[in-house]
């Protein structure tokens, strides 16, 4: 993955405008967060292959970035995005890695279902 270039990431998001897409969205602090620090409140969420109508997407912020996707009847949102890539299958993979390089958030958009 590469460090986000906001112009290129925005162009990549635009490719999906007004299409049906599959979305992977996740936030995670790792399964050992509370084991390593009893005062840490462990939380996270994960959805894979949500099939949605993508109206438009926008990437904003000074970096780490925020990405919002507008749906006809709702929204998808991710915060803390640092890296991105468009893979060989045309899927846009956005990820946020924390200060230690560990994945903290992922937002991925594909025209075909994720495995």
């Amino acid at each position, binding site marked *: 993955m590469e460090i986000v270039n906001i112009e290129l990431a925005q162009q990549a998001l635009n490719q999906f405008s007004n299409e049906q897409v599959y979305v992977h969205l996740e936030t995670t602090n790792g*399964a050992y967060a509370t084991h390593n620090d009893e005062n840490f409140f462990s939380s996270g969420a*994960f959805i894979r292959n949500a099939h949605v109508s993508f109206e438009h997407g926008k990437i904003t912020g000074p970096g780490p970035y925020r990405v919002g996707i507008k749906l006809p009847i709702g929204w998808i949102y991710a915060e803390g995005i640092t890296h991105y890539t468009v*893979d060989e299958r045309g*899927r846009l993979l956005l*990820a946020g890695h924390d200060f230690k*390089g560990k994945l903290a958030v992922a937002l991925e958009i594909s025209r075909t279902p994720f495995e």
Partner: protein
Amino acid sequence: MEKERHVLVVFPHPDDEAFGVSGTIATYIGMGTPVTYACLTLGEMGRNMGNPIFANRETLPIVRKKELQDAAAALGITDLRMMGLRDKTVEFEEEEKLVGMMTSLLEELNPSLVITFYPGYSVHPDHEATGRAVVEAVSRIAEDERPKLHCVAFSKGHEDVIGKPDVVNRITDVLTKKMAALRAHRSQTEQMASELEAKLESGDEQIVNWIQNERFWTYKF
């Protein structure tokens, strides 16, 4: 270590075997005992993407599958089963499906020893669900035919409840194999393995003791 007929190791993630059990696995293989390693997922939801980052959420399973195969090869495991579940979802599968998966492995392999996580004392929800399913499947075998069950535990304060491990395997003779298995899980362990090796070389007593002695609790049904 006692000679076994067949050892079945069941863990949910590639690298679960590396830290606490790989020396034991290599030792059994060295004794001529067949070892089957059933790994339930490919660690698809791992947070470590390599340092520097070389994997992403979609390539991680491919990377970790290869690492798992390399680790198995380093230990001499020839029967590696990848069971096709998804990381972080094991606890949400139907309980009977998991127990059935374990039962079919037990019936096929007829192991004399099974190794897994100790339910209640193994921290990660996937570890807990794996341990629970194995315990349940083994408990359904008639007592006189039941294999021994050795569990790995590491939750905070576990020794206050379950006491000291009753099985401690000293694995010094196969330490190089253990380190090779650890290193094979490169995306997850690269930085840690280097730090570990430095500490081993400097003779850090706590680390030497931790890495050279693998601890198990015999499950009492």
